[in-house]
């Protein structure tokens, strides 16, 4: 049961990680768009 709980937790954190990474990528894209506008 401990292992399955760990697996579930790992799945959850991995999913969160993935979403955060996607969010970060999008924010970087936005930043670069803004930077191009400024230049």
């Amino acid at each position, binding site marked *: 049961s*401990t*292992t399955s709980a*760990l*697996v579930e*937790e*790992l*799945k959850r*954190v*991995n*999913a*969160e*990680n*993935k*979403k*955060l*990474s*996607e*969010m*970060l*990528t*999008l*924010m*970087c*894209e*936005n*930043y*670069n*768009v*803004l*930077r191009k*506008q*400024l*230049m």
Partner: protein
Amino acid sequence: MDCSSPLDISLNLNTNPFDRSFPAKLPKEEIKVSTSAGVERKWLVKDKSASELREELNRVNSENKKIKEMLATVYENYYALHHHLEKLQSRKSPEIDHIEQPMKKTKQDPEEFLGFPNGLSSGKTENSSSNQSHHYQQQHEQKNQLLSCKRPVTDSFNKARVSTVYVPADSSDTSLTVKDGYQWRKYGQKVTRDNPSPRAYFRCSFAPSCPVKKKVQRSAEDPSILVATYEGTHNHLGPNASAGDATSQAGSSTVTLDMVHGGQKLGLETNERRTMQEVLVQQMASSLTNDSNFTAALATAITGRLLMEQSRT
């Protein structure tokens, strides 16, 4: 902030290692144990896999923390750049402010800050999101048109030059006077809808034909600050000038005031915003990660953004 190089968006993060490694690893361990060893060894292997899981969990958690820190940094950089852009635009033309204000408001919203059209995470339809992006694009085009129209018309721009000065004043003083060295004749006062304190109108009486007007009103946000808006350029020497160009004298005195008082206010705003950043990022992260429709929404947003970029070019 260094704006010379674009941000590297390749994060090199192992975003989903679980799907690749663990489902393959765990069954193998179990099979090995059941076929070749007794109960004790089976427990050992289980412990081993549990410890591996814990290690992996720690690793992913630390990665998670790093991403959140990076998000905060990027948010800070983005906001600084955006603020810089706004300042540049407001220097170019005061009329841009009217367009820029609603855009500034939208940037406070984390979802819109990320480039998401309104209502994506709250489950609104695709039509509404495309309308919002279209609206955003229209605003952007309107702003660009204003900029492009304003740039060549330098003379008319100088005639209608507007500058704002922030002056700390005693809240008990109701005279609405800003001492800047010039002589002013008050010709009106009225109450505006957006501010409880009245606005006073002055005309420069230093020279009979001077076109400069001044509006003075207490700040709606901070009543201890008087906001003086100057319109036009003095056609005479400054109050302390013995010789020299009248226009440059008037211009320089205004700029000095702007830098002193406006700079302080700007610093306060920056500090407030910085304290808000971490909270916003945390809220943004938690709300997005709890949203099961996030991936679909993100895909729609990226597609919308790409289409918008294509239509611009």
